[in-house]
């Protein structure tokens, strides 16, 4: 019996060591914490250093909210969703800045956006008046546009290590070879050291192994109409932006989808019903079927690249 107990103890010790290596919570503490969380979810978010998004369903999925000491990845499948992705990331930043700004009226830590040359060329530069209307403080916004990805990574690491920015946003295009698991792990560790969040915005990128705690895939949804003071909707108008999010990477087994609306005036997210319509599907770019491969000849050469746009016949 005593032997069995010793073995158990060694097993627990090993599990704890592994948990520490992986930067996760020690399993023995997790059980206690879960019991506590059931009583007071607010305290739990604070203890885990999470930023609650203010939507209970989402916060539960995120174990309290967006991590304040780690890496969160947002990715879009197509470059045309760049505007929407920018909006969601900036909404998170506004939430963060608001959190700090409420306590101290004058100065809060700035948000640092590390841009990418190609994205800046295609999707434009941040615009102060737009940011202001979106709920951010333009004077507490820094924008870096380095020439190379290595420089961008260096800025991100330096910024995280200094702990000066309230949030660091790193924008990359696609899945660059120089930004793999090693680099993202390095950034995540830096973020953990100083307790500052890093948001990775991957424009037009594929799923890739990274050390992000959570990864969202984002696409836009048609905006609702503007709400009038009496509760009715103003026909034909374009209201607050809507984000259709899929939680691709988390501790949850199944991906979770939900639609959020950002209200810049109140700086808060609203969860919408899943019945929100999506954009009408684009007609397939090339509707004509290709001939089937011949049996008596070698196969045709593989296609290169992907077809981005194709003229419509009519």
């Amino acid at each position, binding site marked *: 019996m005593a032997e069995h107990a010793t073995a158990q103890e060694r097993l627990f010790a090993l599990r704890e060591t592994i948990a520490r290596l992986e930067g996760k919570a020690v399993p023995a503490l997790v059980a206690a914490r879960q019991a506590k969380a059931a009583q007071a979810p607010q305290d739990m978010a604070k203890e885990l250093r999470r930023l609650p998004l203010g939507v209970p369903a989402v916060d539960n999925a995120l174990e309290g909210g967006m991590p304040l000491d780690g890496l969160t990845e947002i990715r879009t499948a197509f470059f045309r969703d760049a505007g929407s992705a920018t909006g969601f990331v900036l909404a998170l930043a506004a939430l963060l800045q608001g959190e700090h700004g409420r306590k101290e009226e004058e100065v809060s830590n700035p948000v640092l956006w590390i841009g990418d040359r190609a994205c800046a060329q295609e999707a434009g530069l941040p615009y102060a008046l737009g940011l202001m*209307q979106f709920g951010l403080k333009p004077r507490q916004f820094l924008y870096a546009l380095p020439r190379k990805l290595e420089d961008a990574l260096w800025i991100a690491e330096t910024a995280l290590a200094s702990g000066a920015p309230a949030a660091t946003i790193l924008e990359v295009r696609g899945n660059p070879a120089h930004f793999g698991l090693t680099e993202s792990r390095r950034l995540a560790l830096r973020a953990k050291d100083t307790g500052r969040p890093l948001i990775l915005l991957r424009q037009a990128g594929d799923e890739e192994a990274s050390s992000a705690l959570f990864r969202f895939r984002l696409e836009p949804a048609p905006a609702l109409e503007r709400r009038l003071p009496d509760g009715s909707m103003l026909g*034909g108008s*374009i209201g607050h932006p809507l984000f259709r999010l899929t939680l691709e990477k988390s501790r949850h087994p199944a991906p979770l989808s939900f639609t959020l609306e950002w209200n810049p005036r109140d700086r808060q997210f609203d969860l919408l019903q899943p019945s929100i319509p999506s954009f009408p599907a684009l007609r397939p770019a090339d509707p004509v079927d290709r001939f089937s491969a011949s049996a008596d000849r070698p196969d045709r050469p593989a296609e290169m690249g992907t077809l981005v746009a194709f003229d419509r016949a009519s």
Partner: protein
Amino acid sequence: MRLVALDEAAEAIGLRRGQGLAEARAIHPRLDVIEEDPAADRAFLEAVADWCDRYTPLVAIDEEDGLLLDITGCAHLFGGEEALLNDVLLRLFQMGLDVRGAIAGWPGLSWAACRFGRCGVVVDEDRQGMTATLPVASLRLSEDLVSSLQKFGLKRVGDLLSLPRAPLVRRFGSQVLLRLDQIVGAVEEPISPRRPVPLLSSERRQIEPIQVEEDILHVTEEVARMLLPGLEARGAGGRVFELMLFRVDGRVFRIEAEASRPLRDPKRIAALFSERLKAIHDDLDAGFGFEILRLNVLQHDDFQLAQGDFEGQGERSATLAELVDRVTARLGRNVLQGFDLRESHIPEKASVFLPAADGLAEGRKSETGFGFRGGERPLRLFRYPEQVETVTAEVPDGPPFRFRWRRMVHEVLRAEGPERISSEWWLDNQDEAERDYFRLEVRTGQRLWIYRRGHYHENQPPGWFVQGIFA
């Protein structure tokens, strides 16, 4: 082709400057001739001038082959004028240069003494006698003037000095008198240094030259500590610093670094250079090491002593400044930027980017100073509006239904607008057409900010442009 410069051997066999090359070859067929390269000569002279910075910060280049050093107040550091001159000449001689040098009370006399008289320090006792015996060519006059003076038998400066001044001006012009006054020191002649004089400067001479980056940074910190009393006495902190590294073989490196706010802390000054050194790592060749390190303050601002508060507010803005400094030092001024809001209703003029270092330096303006009342503005604005083609829109001022942008046809699902923005007619040359802005939601899910420039006219449809994207 003519000879412009000769070495000792060539002088010994009787060649002279200005001689034709063919003639010289006829005298001595085995001449080794190198084509003149004035740019390289100049660069070399600049390098020597840089090296001379070790004696005084006031170094001026004199014509093609001379340097003027203002050693006022510097001589005692090297053990007197005689010792200073010997040191300069000896070191340059060891570098393989044939140099003549003289020290006198003013530039005109030292120029003449160096080129035409006895080299060395001109002492007060024999100054008058020496000046009188110098040839008229030592007056820095044009060649024509010198030869016409010589035709009149005026061979020495003393001959001119004994003449009445008025007839001299009438015959030879005022230039002669000016030069005469300059050689006797009756007229002040300023030396214009090639570089601005630093406000503060401190240096360290190493007995053992240093090569390694860590050592350089360590010594930089030491030197920065020596600057501290000077900065404190002025109540200032440095904004722009210059680190000068004198290599043992005479080459001088200058590294400039800028801080976003006035600095005094030696550690942070050294940290500025640590990023700069990493950025220029390949260009900095330590060779056999650096023997002198000098730190100059080129620009300084008032330094506000801040007492640490309990909430750590001051500390936080200090870390931000440190971050900005590091990025600026390593990647340049324009990489990290902040916003500056301008009161203009033309969208692209209302918000401009400024280097973050400048933004921090001028201090934060209050957030409430700018009230914007207008329609919704996009989150991202294109650097230049992009023209769209084949627009079908409601005439005269409705939103578009369909347009072609970036090689793709976009169908508009919903539109908001127009918001009309006129040009700033109260400014000169700002007579552009009016713009009607629309917010569009297109079929692909993008929300675009698009405008029509001008109105519909006969045979001339207006242009449509996409200027930004919304969330």
